[in-house]
């Protein structure tokens, strides 16, 4: 038996889950899929007093269309989201990124909300939420609030979520039909965390970029929105886009670090390359169509 002892509760409603979180005074941890939390428990890097299992709360599961967007319940399994027709139709960038999350076996149990709420800086789902402009819905016994994804992440595995709060939904705004998907990542094996990656969406109108949302993962302590690159692309005519220059602008917003797997310099170099390639590929595809 590897984890330190804990109590386990399986609430049936959001209200009950929030009550348990509030009553435990910061000693509780929420488990959804557990594909990151269980390793942390087994390694005793996380030692909660109470584990709050949200898998029996029906309101936290499933994909629904809402005014102006698509709402994903946080306890929705990654494998189910990957097969979801609404997501495939409205959020192709989300689906592309999700295909790179973990392995076949972990996607069968891992959830969208778990990945979003955990805030691993090299993970695809937090960056996707930032790139697409998602809104994180949060509940506690004190009430509910909504936080834009780009304000949700404050450091590695650190978010604005208070210990008594629960993510109850992730709402991705609609992007127009036919918008383009930008995605590239470099990882040691398929399914591993990316050394560097980017995800985004672009809208073309009359040969110019009219909307852009792009974010990096593995390029700093949080997912990082490529604001300078977005600004460089907005209003630009396709013929006038210098992919390498935009990629340099994109890298200028990042703050990568050295670790066992790659140096910051490697991440910047490779990041600029894959950004430029992604841009060329995505825009060429369009012009060839």
């Amino acid at each position, binding site marked *: 038996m590897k984890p330190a002892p804990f109590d386990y509760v399986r609430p049936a409603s959001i209200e009950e889950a929030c009550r348990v979180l509030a009553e435990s005074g910061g000693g509780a941890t929420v488990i959804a899929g557990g594909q990151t939390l269980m*390793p942390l428990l087994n390694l005793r890097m996380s030692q909660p007093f109470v584990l709050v299992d949200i898998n029996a709360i029906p309101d936290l599961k499933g994909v629904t269309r809402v005014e102006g967007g698509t709402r994903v319940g946080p306890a929705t399994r990654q494998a189910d989201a990957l097969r979801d027709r609404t997501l495939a139709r409205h959020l192709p960038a989300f689906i592309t990124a999700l295909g790179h999350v973990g392995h076949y076996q972990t996607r069968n149990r891992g959830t969208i909300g778990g990945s979003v709420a955990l805030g691993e800086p090299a993970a695809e789902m937090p960056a996707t939420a930032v790139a697409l402009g998602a809104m994180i819905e949060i509940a506690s016994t004190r009430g509910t609030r909504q936080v834009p994804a780009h304000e949700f992440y404050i450091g590695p595995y650190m978010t604005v979520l208070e210990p008594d709060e629960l993510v109850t939904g992730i709402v991705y705004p609609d992007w127009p039909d036919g918008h383009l998907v930008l995605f590239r990542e470099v990882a040691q094996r398929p399914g591993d965390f990316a050394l560097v990656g980017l995800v985004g969406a672009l809208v073309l109108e009359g040969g110019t970029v009219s909307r852009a949302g792009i974010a990096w993962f593995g390029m700093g302590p949080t997912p990082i929105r490529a604001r300078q690159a977005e600004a460089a692309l907005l209003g630009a005519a396709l013929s006038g886009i210098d992919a390498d220059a935009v990629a340099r602008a994109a890298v200028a917003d990042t703050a990568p670090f050295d670790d066992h797997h790659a140096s910051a310099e490697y991440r910047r170099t490779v990041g600029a390359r894959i950004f430029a390639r992604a841009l060329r590929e995505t825009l060429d595809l369009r012009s060839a169509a």
Partner: protein
Amino acid sequence: MSEHAIELTVNGHRHAARVEARTSLGEFLREGLGYTGTHLACEHGVCGACTVMVDGAAMRSCLMLAVQANGAQVTTIEGLADDDGTLHPVQQALKDNFGLQCGFCTPGVAITLACVTRDNESAGEREMEDALVTAMSGHICRCTGYQGIRRAIRQLSNRKLAEVAE
């Protein structure tokens, strides 16, 4: 430290037990119920050896708690072959192609390949092979160099090869 009464079905047999909350499903299968075919190795979701089917889906049994499997249908490596001992096609393919050496990772590999072949039953040869190879990224094997497993996947994907094997 809470204890919980659970009931689950493993390979068609119903079991009821009390488990400590922190007991992983993999540990419970091995220590609690004696299904020692499920191998625990890294116990943090990296190696894939402990993969079992939970309600038909391949999952890491080290990354879920036994209490979370309450009410579930679990299939372990012991449940893959027919009752008369006829090997599951995945087991047969691994055997035919030397897809194992020490065998430690094999139960997990076989469970994954069984799930993926079932999910892609109507897929073409190429699609099936791609799906099987991709899913293997979730397993680490230190003996075979993956070549035997790769050949087993070839056999599973190609109907003619599979028929010759039969």
